Structure formats: structure tokens, C-alpha cells
């Protein structure tokens, strides 16, 4: 039985705006992050991701619902709950007039303290050893992100919450941070809760995801199960109509979309090599048969641009 590290239960936040109007930023969401998960939290801007993360870390008081971290209720046992967490929200923030090392010492002290040796070791692991005495205001975005991760690691957390960790980084920096997160999660047996609007990042890093839209979770599940259910296959052929008819007649597969050169179908577990052989056998030439590349992007856009999305994934493991 997997052990839940972060439990979000019926969490809501309503903000009072000018006049009598109320903005529901988060609307009764529930999800669980289990030990060892790298959990991707996705959503367009304004979907409620940041508000959810801030409620999960005690920065914003929920209107209703509860958050529990490592079995400790955040509202009634905040200090114990946060002892198991390393996090940064939006962007890692530091005192620019202090060195990287001094900043880590301050934040480590707030988390209960860390021996000097551990600070050195952590700075080395994130690749900042040698630059730790420089003032943070001269650090690049990438160095600040790495320092943010170092500050997260010092309390030896069970759960690391990273809000847009690669925001503002160049492609090289993005890759560095992704590799670092993946390595640390593996080596430290960390549970990672990662918020991002970069779908490729989530696809590269996460094993579970939730997509938030207008304060509600519209998709939630294991990434590989979602991939099996939603990833389409592109078939390119000079006889697209014949290919489409064959797929419908032989396997009951509908064409999801098509263009001049090819069509997309959901194979529903049918092995692509089997389909390829069958099409050849039926005399339908196939110039290409390949899995959809940006399936998560398509799914995300499809879900978040539909006005009243009601799709709920029934693929929760």
C-alpha cells in the first residue's frame, strides 16, 4: 500500500473582490501524492495552481478543506507538517545582499538547523560549491534555481514542492535543473510535487499528473496510464480513406483527426506492428506509422480550452 505524503482534501479558496463579488480560485479539489511520486501539477495561467500550492504550504488559509503532509494536518500541526517539506514558490527568493552560503544557513536555521558539513555537501551536490561565497545578487537565474533546490534539501525533506522550477531559465539551464531534480528524487528517495506549465518538463520528469482548470481538477492519474489511454498514432498513406475504412471495419477504430498526409487514431492497445502488417496485407500502403509526439500538449489544450470540461480520468492507479 503506497504511503501518502501529501493529501489535499476538498480544498477551496474564495477571495473577496471589490464589492460583493467573490472569486473562487480553487474549488473543492482533492488529490494524493504518494511516497516516491514525481507529481506534475499542470494548468493554464490563472487555473489556481499557485493558490493550491500556497494553501498546501500554509501561505494562504483555505476557505474550506484540509491539507495533510506526512500524516500531519497543516492547520492544526503546521510546524510538524512543514518540517518534512522543502519548497520554493514561484521563484526561489533570497537575500541578494548576502552570499549563497549565508542564505542557505539562514533558511536551514529556520528549518531547525543543519551542520556546516551538510551545507557544504548540499551546495556541492547542486553544483554551487566554489561560488557559495558570492553574493546572491550576482547569481544567474540557473544558479538561483540551484540554490533554491539546495535550500529545499537542507531540512532533509520527505516532500519537495517546486513551483515552476525552470521558469526564466535558458534551454541549457532547464536541462540542468530537470536532470538535478530527477537525480535527487532517485538518490534521496524524495517525493516531488512539481508545478509547471511546461508540458515537456512534466512528461520528462513525472510519473503522475493532475491538470487544473478554473480551480477544478479536470484530469488526474498515472502518466503512463493516461498515455495508453490518450496517445494517438499517426498513419501516413497515399490511400487515407481506405486506411480509415479498414481501421473502422476491422478494429472499430475511429479517426480522431486527419490532414492531407495522414490521420490520427487511438489504437486502444493494438500493437502498431500488428496494424502495420494488417494494412500491408490489405494492400494499403503505409509510408509512416508513428506515435503522436506532443500527445500531452494536445490533451492539455483540448481539456483546458473546452468551456465546461467534464472529462475525468478513470485511470487512477
Amino acid at each position: 500500500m503506497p504511503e501518502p505524503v501529501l493529501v489535499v482534501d476538498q480544498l477551496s479558496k474564495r477571495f473577496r473582490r471589490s464589492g460583493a463579488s467573490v472569486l473562487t480560485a480553487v474549488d473543492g479539489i482533492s488529490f494524493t501524492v504518494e511516497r516516491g511520486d514525481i507529481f506534475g501539477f499542470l494548468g493554464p495561467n490563472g487555473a489556481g495552481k499557485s493558490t493550491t500550492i500556497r494553501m498546501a504550504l500554509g501561505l494562504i488559509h483555505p476557505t474550506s478543506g484540509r491539507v495533510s503532509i506526512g500524516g500531519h494536518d497543516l492547520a492544526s500541526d503546521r510546524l510538524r507538517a512543514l518540517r518534512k517539506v522543502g519548497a520554493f514558490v514561484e521563484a526561489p527568493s533570497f537575500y541578494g545582499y548576502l552570499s549563497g552560503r549565508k542564505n542557505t544557513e539562514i533558511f536551514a536555521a529556520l528549518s531547525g538547523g543543519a551542520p556546516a558539513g551538510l551545507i557544504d555537501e548540499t551546495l556541492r551536490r547542486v553544483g554551487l560549491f566554489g561560488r557559495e561565497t558570492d553574493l546572491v545578487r550576482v547569481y544567474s537565474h540557473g544558479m538561483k534555481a540551484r540554490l533554491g533546490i539546495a535550500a529545499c534539501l537542507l531540512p532533509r525533506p520527505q516532500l519537495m514542492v517546486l513551483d515552476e522550477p525552470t521558469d526564466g531559465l535558458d534551454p541549457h539551464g532547464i536541462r540542468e535543473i530537470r536532470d538535478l531534480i530527477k537525480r535527487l528524487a532517485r538518490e534521496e528517495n524524495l517525493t516531488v510535487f512539481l508545478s509547471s506549465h511546461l508540458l515537456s518538463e512534466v512528461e520528462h520528469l513525472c510519473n503522475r499528473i493532475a491538470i487544473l482548470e478554473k480551480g477544478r481538477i479536470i484530469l488526474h492519474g498515472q502518466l503512463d496510464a493516461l498515455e495508453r489511454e490518450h496517445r494517438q498514432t499517426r498513419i501516413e498513406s497515399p490511400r487515407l480513406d481506405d486506411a480509415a475504412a479498414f481501421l473502422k471495419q476491422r478494429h472499430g477504430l475511429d479517426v480522431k483527426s486527419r490532414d492531407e498526409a495522414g490521420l490520427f487514431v487511438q489504437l486502444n492497445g493494438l500493437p502498431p506492428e500488428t496494424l502495420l502488417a494488417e494494412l500491408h496485407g490489405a494492400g494499403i500502403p503505409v509510408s509512416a506509422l508513428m506515435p503522436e509526439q506532443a500527445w500531452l500538449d494536445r490533451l492539455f489544450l483540448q481539456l483546458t480550452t473546452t468551456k465546461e470540461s467534464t472529462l475525468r480520468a478513470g485511470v487512477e492507479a
Partner: protein
Amino acid sequence: MTWVPFIVLSLLVGLIVAVFYRLQFKQPLLLFQQARLNVSSKDDFVNGYYMAAHAMNPVFNLLIPIFISVASGLMIAGEAEGGTLRACLIRPVRRRDLILSKFVVLSAYCLCLCLFFLGLVLVAGLLNFGTGNLMTLNMFFNNGELGASLVPAAEVPLRFALAGLLATLGMTVLAALALMISALVESAAMAYVVTLSIYFTVLTLRMFPALDWLYPYLFVSHMMRWQQCFYSYVKTGDIYVSLVHLLFYLIAFLSAAVLLFNEKDVKS
């Protein structure tokens, strides 16, 4: 940034010394003579104590409140803007402990500013203009009584110590108010603008005779009680009343700051 006020105060003291060398003090001389004090020239009353006591008025009523409002604005709202507040609050610390530790630092800063200014202005005054009896005009030291006061030279150091303590306590109350405002608003600029607006509004209320019934309840009235330390006779009863009021305001502002900060949603 925290060093700027110390530089400003040093420059100001230098400027005051220069001005005191140039001024003829004809009007105070006339007023002291009208009050039947035994003075015939400025040398009879202009000394280091006179300079220091008169320099305290603009500094404790205007400059130090501005410095404290800015510092406390930066402490909560400024850190919220910079993101370091949320970096602190996502760690296992009580909000109450965090804001109280900020208040302790702010109080220490107040104390440093006040002691630095008082020490500097006294040393500069005594080195340049020597010692002597302290004569003050009550028109500069508001207590509603007309006339002049004379404090014998031997008593003056004690009077300055008492005035300094009272003024510092007053500044600490302002710091608690500023921290409360800082916990309430989202930006540092807004925090010190609101704090100074409240302070100057209350200060202005004291200028309307029709509102004199309100004076005893205004925290600013008690913040300025240090001025009475330079009267001929110190009214200890008034000093105690002000001490009680200042402590009451301190606790009230600080409690409100803790409550507001506990309930604050950190959105920035």
C-alpha cells in the same frame, strides 16, 4: 540601506553645528529676557545642551519616524514583495515568532538610531559650544504652558537620559504601529506611506485647540512627552501616565500586528 539614516543624522548634526555658529539667536534672547531669565547675550544660553535639546525636536518628531516607518515597511511588506517572506513562512516557524523577532530587531534599530543621534549631537554640541545651564522656551517644547525653563547644568545629563529613554520608547511604539501596517498591506511603499500618514494626521490633530480634549488619548501626545524632561521641574505624574499609555499602545499595536499577520494570506 540601514546605514543611510546614520549618515543622514551625522550630516544633520554637522549642519546644525554650522548653523549654530552663524546664528545670532536674537529672537530667543528677547524671549528669554521677556521671561525674566538673566541673559544678556547668546553666550549666556547657547551651549552644547541647548543645541542638543533643540536638535531633538525635528529629529524625534520627523526624521526618526520616517526612518523607522521605512525600515518596518521593508521588514514585512518589503520581504513579501521580494519573495523572502514566503521563503521564511514555508518553513516550520510560527508566524507569531517571526513577527515578534522582526519587532525585536526593529526595536534594536530604533534604540541604535536614538542613542547614536543623542550621543553624536551631545558630543558635537559640548565640543563646540561647551556646557552650562539648559534654557528652553516652552513654545518649542509643547506642554501648553507659556514661558521659559531653566535646568541647572548638573541636572542636565540626567534629563537627557530620561528624555532619550522616553523618546526611544515613543519610537518603539511607532515601530509597532508600522509593523502592524506592514503586516496589513502588500507593498513596502504602501506600508510606510500609510504609517506616516497616520502619524502625521495624529500629529496635526494636536494643532487644533478645539480638539484639546483628544490630546491625552493620542499616542503622539505621549510620544512627545520627552519634551517635558527639559522643563524646570519634571512632572513625574505626567511621565508615568505617558509611560502607561505608551506601553498600552505598544501592546495593542503589537497584538494587532500578530493577529493580522497570523491571518494574512501571502499572495505576493
